């Protein structure tokens, strides 16, 4: 491999990792608070892709982007209210099944409404401008993704660590019942979590699909699973962990594919999951939690 090729791969990997990181944040926040693997998150991400397709058909991108983010947030919150909130008192497995059900529903609904054929993702022209540095060539979005990811994460970290809302979120995530007793409006916090998660998914979706240019009803499934693994890898519940995990998976996936093991690139992600579960179930930067008896 020449150095140009390696640099090109690294660039691809980091860019993919950035998009993964943004999606992984949604998983990690929801898991931190509800202890729920939100299987529907990957489909929220996919739906955001479709929203963009339709939004860009009638309006320019500067209006479309905020609108798509808003609609995606709305979808995320509606899903929470309709499918998870009624099951707060139910066994955890019920909520998990419910989230799988929502995922199944969104996929089938998308197939029904938009057909299973891939829809071309609209081109946001400034993002697609191709830059040539030496013999490395990539579009702006490739460079922008990791940078934007880091900026968003810093904003989010500030929000979590230095605002009252963030404190409430941390409290709920640490001890759900006590936080409730302390008068924290749990439902409100959960809604906020879904708002943040969905917004990140929407931004991630724009970056991801701009790079990949097509959306199908199943576009979300595999990236979604990988991002959950990323969240576990970094330490579920931890935002920096999710970002770290996202980058690790994005880069390793790119290199595996590049080395001709594309068959195993997905498999590797899950192997990574099983390894981390064996050796460090709390993730790379997660905290140990002891169950109360």
């Amino acid at each position, binding site marked *: *491999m*020449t150095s*140009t*090729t390696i640099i*090109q*791969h690294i660039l*691809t990997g980091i860019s*993919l990792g950035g998009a993964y990181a943004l999606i992984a944040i949604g998983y990690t926040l929801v898991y931190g608070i509800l202890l729920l693997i939100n299987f529907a998150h990957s489909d929220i991400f996919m739906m955001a892709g479709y929203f963009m397709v339709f939004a860009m058909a009638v309006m320019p991108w500067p209006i479309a982007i905020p609108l798509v983010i808003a609609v995606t947030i709305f979808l995320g919150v509606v899903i929470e209210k309709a499918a998870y909130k009624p099951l707060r008192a139910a066994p955890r497995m019920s909520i998990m099944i419910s989230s799988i059900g929502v995922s199944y529903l969104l996929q089938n609904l998308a*197939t029904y409404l938009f*057909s*299973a*054929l*891939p829809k*071309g993702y609209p*081109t946001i022209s400034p993002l*697609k401008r*191709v830059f*040539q540095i030496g*013999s490395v*060539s*990539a*579009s702006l979005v490739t460079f922008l993704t990791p940078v934007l990811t880091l900026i968003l994460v810093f904003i989010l970290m500030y929000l979590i660590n230095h605002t009252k809302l963030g404190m409430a979120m941390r409290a709920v995530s640490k001890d759900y019942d006590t936080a409730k007793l302390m008068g924290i409006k749990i439902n409100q916090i959960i809604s906020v979590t879904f708002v943040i998660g969905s917004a990140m998914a929407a931004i991630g979706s724009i970056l991801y699909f701009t*790079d*990949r*240019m*097509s959306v*199908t009803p*199943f*576009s979300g*499934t*595999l990236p979604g699973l990988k991002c959950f693994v990323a969240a576990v890898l970094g330490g579920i519940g931890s935002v920096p962990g999710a970002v770290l995990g996202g980058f690790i998976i994005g880069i390793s*996936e*790119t*290199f595996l*594919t*590049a080395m*001709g093991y*594309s*068959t195993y*690139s*997905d498999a590797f992600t899950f192997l990574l999951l099983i390894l981390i579960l064996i050796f460090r179930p709390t993730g790379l930067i997660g905290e140990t939690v002891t169950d109360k008896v």
Partner: protein
Amino acid sequence: MKKFLAILLISVLMLSVLSGCAATGNAAGGNVIKIGVFEPVTGENGGGGFQEVLGMRYANSKVNTVDIGGKTYTVELVEVDNKSDKTEAVTAAQSLMSSKVSVVLGSYGSGVSIAAGEIFKENKVAAIGASCTNPQVTLGNDFYFRVCFLDPFQGTVMANYAMESGAKTAAVVTQLGDDYSSGLGNFFLKAFEEKGGTIVAQEQYQTNQTDFKAILTNIKAANPDIIFAPSSIATAPLMIKQARELGITAPIAAGDTWENTSIIDNAGADAEGVTLSTFFDENDTSNVIAADFVKGFKEYLKANPDSLSKNGGEGVAAVSALGYDAYMVALEAIKAAGSTDTAKIRDALAKVSYAGVTGAVTFDENGDANKDMAYIKTIKDGKFQFLKTVKVG
């Protein structure tokens, strides 16, 4: 001991079957012969499958009766969607069998055809594939025929074309788990190497993969003269665009599936220069039957706005032509058999000779059409344009 509730269910099932039979019995009151249409309308091959169905529907609208033993039968198309999925394919095929179709047309996509082949064979119903090009479809199955050429042929055609256009090195990109893509890729690879070319990169990707940057970066490093990337329509525009984005300038070539306007729509300017082999060219006026078909089909499309939009405009896809041919061949066989008996139709099919839109159709001992010519097309100015025909002895 819990299984006995199943009895109840079976009784219900039985009743449904009986009522179902009764219902179809009534409908069949006149002289009706049913032809099954076994195609994907959804799933990754939904687009191409639908175009093939359109060809069949058009054929049916043109000729919807057939004379069997002096009696005129109305031809009824029974359409099922195999969803481009092998599991679905089996049940979909089964449902055709229970609708008592006399012959089956389809399917787009070799995988589903292979899967359903066993069912057709078991029920002794002949099937005529329109565009399934994998050798496995008809091999070892006396009931499967097809009106198109095969992948070894297509692979050779493209290898020939590549050599003729001056390529010495090639990269092959195939989809894992896809009979069509990996089959065709392999045949191209063999043919290209036999003719003295060098394969400099061989890359694979997975179903539903949308990011090809990693494998394309490798290809860029290998710097081939041509990239051969047979795939589904879904994958094509992504691969084309990402390749161009990475600064790959080598021409990209593929097989028959790429002849679909959605590729041009989605890949835009990047699609320029893509070449592919296909079964048919609508601008080839040398064949009168074809010219007639093109005219009639376009009118048919205009009369059905929904079909028109799903077809992606007024272009006539090769698979539509093949669908048309498959239908006509079936009618020929039914006429020749002089019976609605499926086994007799099968025997008649083996001997059928028909001058179709995509050329003359006769079947060899495997049930494959004896075709020796393919059309090479290229995308230019946002349209598929005929480049040349290639014959392989």
